[in-house]
Every structure is written in C-alpha cells, then in structure tokens.
C-alpha cells in the first residue's frame, strides 16, 4: 500500500507557476490554497488577482477569480462580498499594488470592517515592471529608479503596512509573517488560516503581510535572497501579530 506523504493542494490548479526560481510567491500560493481546502471553503471562494507578478494567480488558484485594476483589489473585493456575503473573498496583492496605488482602497475597506481576507506580499520592490522602487523598499536599497539607493530625504522611509493597519480598529487581525525558512512558513500558514477563519466567522477585515523574496530584481541568488529577508527585512519589518481580537466598536 502506498502512503501519500505530500501532495499538491487541491486549491491549486495544474497550471505551471509563472514565478522566477527562488521567488516565494509560490510558497504563499501554496499556503493560501491549503487554507481554503482545510477550511473547506474552496468552493465558495472568490480570489482577486491584482496587478503585479501575481496577476496570473487567477490561473493558479483553483476557485472563482476576478482580475482587478492596479490597486483596486479591496474595492473589487468589497463589491463582491457585499453582493455575495456567503462567498469567501480574498485579495492577493503586492506592495506596489496595496501600499502605493491602492492604499486608499485598502485602508477604507479595513476601516469599514469589510469581512475580507487580504494577503499582502511585501517584497520591497516592483517585481513585474522590472525592479523599480516600492514604498516598502528599504533605506539604501538600490532599485532601477533609486540607483543610488533609497534616500530618506528624497523618498521617505519604507512604509510599514501592518503597523498602519494595526491602528485601524475594524481591522480585526493584522499579522506580519515571513516564509524564509520552514518554521516561518508554518507560522505564516497559521496566520493565513486565521485570516480566513475570521472571515468565515464574520469577524471583519484581516490582513496578513508576508515578507517575500524577489531574487531576480534584488540581484541575488535565491539563498542570498532568503538571508536578506531574515537579516535586512525582518530588522525593519518585525514579524509579529499586531492585532488579534474583536473589532473595537468604541469611538
């Protein structure tokens, strides 16, 4: 008799992932899809594929998918969830998409307490367009539009999304996780599960920020990139739970 030790999640299709070697988008896809399957909501799920390297996630997640304009995923998610409250709606957004062009839509969806799950990929760069500076780019980090490195006087400081959302009472669950080693991946899975469970229990807006790699645009090998997450990103972006509780309804 054969024992199955590991198999691809039913939450993913058979399409070949389009991500670069060493990119951790793929790991996060796996975690999201496993969470949908484990919570038995894959058949009720609607994912929002945002503009960025993950735009083709509509081919990868094995559920209904809607592709949204750049930055507008949380507004699109609001429309879907309000129209179909029984659906389990999640957005999957990069840092250009969520933290730059779409920050207004994301903050207001959180502030209204939309019952949504937001998976936010912070890779400190614009991946899809070829490595430009993102709002999350670290100080001193060289990108194609900050060739001398990010300078706080010119570009401001990298934006800490989880911290900002932890100030919004109706964002009931805000956690930053990483996927740079197996232990981190396990913790990330727990956070993603929780973010979906909250929605199933109609508790409100959950956001999981995932520190992710972009070896190609960082100019690193996959292993160097994982190390850079651990040493540089985690030093500026602490991995922790920022909020986990009922929405604070008080004024």
């Amino acid at each position, binding site marked *: 008799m054969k024992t199955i030790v590991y198999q691809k999640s039913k939450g993913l299709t058979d399409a070949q992932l389009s991500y670069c070697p060493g990119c951790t988008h793929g790991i996060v896809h796996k975690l999201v899809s496993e969470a949908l399957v484990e919570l038995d909501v894959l058949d*009720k799920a609607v994912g929002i594929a945002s503009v960025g390297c993950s735009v083709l996630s509509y081919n990868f997640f094995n559920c209904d998918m809607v592709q949204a304009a750049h930055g*507008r995923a949380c507004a*699109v998610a*609001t429309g*879907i969830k*309000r129209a179909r409250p029984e659906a389990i709606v999640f957005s999957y957004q990069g840092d250009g998409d969520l933290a730059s062009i779409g920050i*207004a839509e994301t903050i207001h969806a959180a502030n209204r307490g939309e019952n949504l799950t937001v998976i936010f990929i912070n890779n400190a760069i614009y991946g899809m367009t070829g490595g430009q500076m993102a709002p999350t780019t670290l100080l001193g980090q060289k990108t194609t539009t900050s060739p001398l490195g990010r300078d706080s006087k010119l570009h401001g400081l990298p934006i800490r999304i989880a911290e900002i959302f932890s100030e919004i009472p109706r964002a009931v669950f805000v956690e930053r996780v990483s996927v740079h080693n197996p232990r981190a991946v396990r913790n990330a899975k727990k956070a993603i599960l929780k973010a979906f469970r909250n929605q199933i229990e109609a508790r409100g807006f959950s956001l999981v920020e995932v520190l992710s790699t972009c070896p190609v645009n960082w100019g690193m090998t996959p292993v160097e990139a994982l190390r850079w997450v651990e040493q540089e990103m985690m030093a500026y972006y602490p991995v922790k739970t920022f909020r986990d509780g009922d929405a604070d309804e008080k004024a």
Partner: protein
Amino acid sequence: MKKILMKGNEAIARAAILGGLDAFFGYPITPQNEIPEYLSKHLPKMGKVFVQAESETAAINMVYGAAAAGARTMTTSSSPGIALMQEGISYLCGSELPCVLVNVMRGGPGLGGIQPSQADYYQITRGGGNGDYRVLSFAPENLQETVDLMKEAFDIADFYRNPVMIAVDGLIGQMMETVDLHREKPKRELPDKDWAACGSGKKRLVNSLYLDPAELERHNFRLFEKYRMMEENEQRYELVKMEEAEFAIVAYGTMARIARSALELLEEAGVKTGLIKPISLWPFPKKAFSELPASLKGLLVAELSLGQMLDDVKIANEGRLPIAFFGRTGGMLPEPEEIAEAVLKMKAEASQ
C-alpha cells in the same frame, strides 16, 4: 397607472430600484446627490446594498466587483467623477461586465461648475479609458423618458454584458415633473449569468488580461461583433415635425427640450422646422439621417457644449446638407429665441 410628481434625481433612484438594482456604490458630487441620498434610505430596508465609497475610483471598482459576482449594480456621478471612473469603465467593458452608470453632467473642464452641461459628449461616446471599447449611452429629455430608460438599462446591460450609461444634466436631475413609474418596459430574453464569480465552485474567471496578442485580438474582434450588434439594434431617436421641414435642429436632452420651444417660434415665423432628437448617443442614431425628407435645406446642431455631437452629425450627414452650429456652455442655457434666430440666420444664408 397613476402619475406622480417627482424630482429628477429621485425619479432616477426610484427607477433604478424598479429596474432591479441590487447594489449601489457612489461618491458624493453635485448635482446628483439626491440619487445616493434616496438610495441610502431605501436600499438597506430592502436588504440591498448601499455603500458610500471613498472615491469614484473605488466606487467604479466596487461596481466591477458586484457585477463580477452577478449582481445588478450601479453608480451615479457627475462629470469630474465620471472622469475618474474611466479606467474602471474600460475594465468593465474588457471583462464584459454589465452595470448601469448615471452621469448628471455639469460644466467643465476641470472643476468647472455645477450648472447643466452637455460637454461630456466626447467623454461618454469616445470614452477616456484605454483600449477599443464602447459604452451604450442614452440621453433622455424628460423625466418619463429618464425613468423608462433607467428601468430598461439594467436589462440592456445584462443582455449585452456591457456597461450602459444614462446621461442627463443638472437641469433634468433637479426639475420636478409627473411620471408614471410603472410603464411596461420592452421584454428581453436575458441570458443566465453562468459566468459570475460568486463562489460558484466552478473556477470561473472574470478578466481582461490577454498576454498573447493573437488571443487579445480575437477577444477584441468578439467584442466588436457585440458592438456591431448594438449599433444595429440600439440606435434610438425621435423625429419631430419633420414632414416637409425646410430645416431641422439636431439636439438631445435638455437642449432638445429648449429646441421644442424654438420649433413653435419658427412655426409662427413661417419657417417649417423639425427636430432630430438622438436618444442613444452611442450608438449614434445614424439611421435617423437616412430617412430625412427631401425638403430639408440644412441642419442646425444645438448643444450645451461648443460642438461635440456635431462630429457625429457630420459623419451621419455624409456631406449631404449644410450644417450650422449653435452652442452655449459652462452651464448657460439658451432661450428658445436664440436657437430660432440661428435657424433664421441659416435660412438667410441659404437663400443668398
């Protein structure tokens, strides 16, 4: 059915509910605020969705989401707000999602003013979004027509899986008229929304991205086949007093209302003048121009802009008749006398 007295914007809101509106998303802007105000009072009581969005950008994308999930959805705004929605409108067309948009037009450009205008004709018929796409648009002239079109708009949108815009101006939005809310609307066989991404468990996809140019071209050809059907079937217009007319005024919406009074003045002056009133802006009612009487000596295009529909009239006229133009803009409304004078001037020039 009994007629009741209603304010334009409230009649629009009421008619949307009667048309089957499930979910409304919008952002405040004058002169259309009575629409969301009315809906915020009534939709929640009916178990339907009302959300005041943080911007028009968000509103149109909420509409995109609700439409993707299969709901009958709508947003309303005025010129600068519609300008901000153009990206979303392009996405709605690209992804073939039905929705209803209402533009209660005001003067521009920029922040412009809040008085009635038709200076968004290019924005409505050419669009400000990217790509080869079309939005069905209708411009009613009075409240009864507005109510009838609003109710029908949801069916037309679902039929073609395309946004439908109702374009009025602040005058129609603010005026009071009697309307029959329950006039029968034309029946259409509506397809099932078996494409809606509503948590169907069937891996449905709502999308406008096609990375393969050959596939994108095929997608565009398919959309154009649909647009061609709209051009064939949805041209709407009214011809008034065209029999043996010497001149015709071409005007829509509020300008058509004013032109009707000008027709009376011209009749008194003994100049036989008719009215060509486009109701659909896109598709532009070219058909109207192929059935004009041989008695015609010229067309006067009258708009609350400095000449935008004028282009479409020139295209439809195919160089047959001389065309003159009369326009007021910025929120200024002409007296019927001004339009009548413009016709008389045309007549004088024609007989020179």
